[in-house]
């Protein structure tokens, strides 16, 4: 080998070594600081080291209460001990007073269904005031939650330290992310009804009096109904309704594959013939957008009537109806196509058009090497004016939470992020290498929600708890916060 070639090889080895070191330097370590830009930590709760799915923040009188749904326990700790009772309890719902965001106060844990990971717990939670529901107890505050995969439950949480079970709707499969209109009581409950060819479809209920649920109809994509044959359409993930004023329900089907966005006429859905025939299922549909087989539609978040600055001088089309579509990454260490966020212009509802997408640049943190999932999972779903149509907060698993400026949805851009530090309670995530588990520990920001004050709540799937954040710098300016 000539000296010149030797030096080329040494330089190459040096570069390769630097890249490898760069990747390992990105591996999270207990005790290391969080990574942040234009976002900072205000408060934290360990959530009793329970794997967390969905946080919902509800204003009750002068207090702000956080309700956090949990997955089932882990192989290592199937039923964590609740320090408040001293008893092991299957993961369920954590209730915290977050009025003082710097000092969240853990009030109560309601146990969920026994079972590990997605098989147990009580992942989803929505809250409505009895005073707002048409036939509710005016003194009650109702919390709707899933119970494992088999049921939905409604609790009265007027005293969040002492919740009382109101009712359970049982006998289902794979219950998931519901939507509940507090002003009408109409609820779109996600699960699998008997004989349907999917584990996740919609059961529309009138929960205006939560103690007396009234079943309105079952709904899904034609082909999912009982007795159908042939190809089975993608499972539902969750709906979002704009209520009687908007008269639309946006259904997102799929997690990381075969996404379908279905735009439905709410009135026709509620008042149409309820028998689940293909024609009856097709009747309320206004529009549909099929995504690539590589991406799913975990969340379909409507941002209607958005003024677009670039189009301000156009004679028509100055405002656009937009939906933000969030995929869900489900495999560890990038063993799947990238799951990210997409924006579709649905102004012409019968011809929805994808207009843009956004992803965390992988190289910005070597996220495929960090461990766990890397990719989008969910957005905040609060439509409070502080962030709505200005900033979307997106949970991105090992890349933490991302604040995206969506004022021009044709050109979304990141304006802040926060990746929490891991703790000694953060659970490992493994992949198989040569038949053996290779495990790494990384933050797994699962879901995010916001409150009307502008606080951002992120919860961790890998048992690291709930982090309460506030925006700074450019992000704070975009939100219009002082």
């Amino acid at each position, binding site marked *: 080998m000539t000296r010149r070639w030797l030096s080329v090889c040494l330089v190459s080895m040096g570069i390769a070594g630097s890249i490898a070191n760069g990747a390992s330097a990105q591996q999270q370590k207990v005790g290391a600081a969080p990574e942040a830009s234009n976002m900072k930590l205000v408060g934290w709760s360990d959530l009793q080291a329970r794997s967390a799915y969905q946080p919902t923040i509800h204003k009750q009188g002068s207090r702000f209460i956080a309700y956090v749904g949990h997955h089932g326990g882990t192989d290592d700790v199937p039923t964590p001990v609740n320090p408040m009772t001293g008893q092991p309890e299957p993961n369920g719902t954590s209730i915290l007073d977050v009025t003082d965001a710097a000092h969240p106060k853990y009030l109560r844990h309601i146990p969920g269904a026994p*079972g*590990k*990971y*997605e*098989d147990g717990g009580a992942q989803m939670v929505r809250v409505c005031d009895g005073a707002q529901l048409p036939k509710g107890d005016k003194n009650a505050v109702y919390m709707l939650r899933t119970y494992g*995969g088999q049921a939905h439950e409604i609790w009265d949480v007027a005293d969040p330290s002492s919740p009382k079970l109101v009712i359970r709707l049982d006998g289902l499969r*794979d219950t998931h992310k519901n939507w509940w209109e507090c002003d009408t009581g109409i609820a779109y409950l996600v699960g699998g009804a008997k004989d*349907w*060819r*999917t*584990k996740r479809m919609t059961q529309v209920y009138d929960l205006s009096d939560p103690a007396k649920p009234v079943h309105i109809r079952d709904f899904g994509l034609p082909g999912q109904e009982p007795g159908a*044959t*042939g*190809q*089975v359409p993608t*499972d539902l993930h969750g709906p979002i309704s704009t209520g009687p004023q908007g008269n639309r329900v946006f259904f997102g089907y799929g997690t*990381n*594959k*075969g996404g379908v966005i279905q735009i439905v006429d709410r009135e026709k859905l509620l008042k149409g013939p309820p028998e689940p025939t293909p024609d009856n299922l097709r009747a309320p549909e206004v529009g549909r957008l099929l995504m690539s*087989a*590589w991406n799913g539609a975990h969340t379909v978040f409507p941002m209607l009537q958005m003024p677009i600055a670039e189009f301000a001088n156009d004679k028509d089309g100055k405002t656009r109806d937009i939906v933000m579509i969030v995929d869900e990454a*489900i*495999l560890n260490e990038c*063993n*799947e196509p990238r799951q990210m966020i997409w924006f579709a212009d649905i102004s012409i509802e019968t011809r929805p058009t994808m207009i843009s997408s956004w992803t965390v640049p992988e190289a910005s943190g070597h996220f495929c090497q960090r461990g766990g999932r890397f990719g989008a999972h969910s957005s905040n779903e609060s439509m409070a004016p502080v962030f709505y149509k200005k900033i979307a907060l997106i949970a991105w698993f090992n890349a933490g939470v991302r604040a995206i400026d969506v004022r021009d949805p044709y050109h979304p851009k990141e304006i802040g992020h926060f990746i929490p530090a891991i703790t000694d309670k953060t659970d490992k995530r493994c*992949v*198989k*290498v*040569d*038949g053996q588990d290779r495990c790494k520990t990384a933050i797994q920001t699962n879901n995010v929600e916001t409150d009307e004050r502008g606080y951002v709540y992120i919860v961790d799937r890998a048992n690291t708890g709930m982090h309460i954040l506030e925006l700074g710098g450019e992000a704070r300016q975009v939100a219009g916060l002082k």
Partner: protein
Amino acid sequence: MISRRTIVQTSLAGGLIAGLAGFSLVANWWPKPDRDEEATGWRRIAWPFPRDAFPAGRAWTRDGTEVYVRPKLGFCGNCDTGVVEDSEIDGKSDIDLLDDKFTPVREGKRIQITDLAGRARLYRIKKDGRERLAQGIAVSLNCDLIVAVVVGKVDDDAVARAAQRFLETNTVQVWLNAALEGK
């Protein structure tokens, strides 16, 4: 100036080299039958389906029976219970790749392929313009699925069992194990 003879000779030589290179490429690309394939008579055929959400699988044929198999990482609906419902075979076994208007013939039954458990179901499909029978199979390993479709006279237990035994050979299992690790 180059003579016509030289041009012709050069062209012939070039053509020969290109032909040999092409033949060598095809010979190397197309896998030689392994020991299990030779012993059992199953012959590898091309995966005939267009790209979809999952990487392409592998396919074999023998005596009018075809087997299509592939892993689907993270696609099991319930990582704890595995495949327990017929709707999961309908929706996940790739039977729709053969015919998206498939009709189940009867209820599915439990099946075990090596140490992986799941369900199998008999379907009527239309393939190449004629009616055929097919068995859809879905078994799970934690959150991952392995799916297969066997097309042929699978209402005959001996045919279905033979295909199942082939799925348990090293030919299929070694490849599946590597594919389940994302390799």
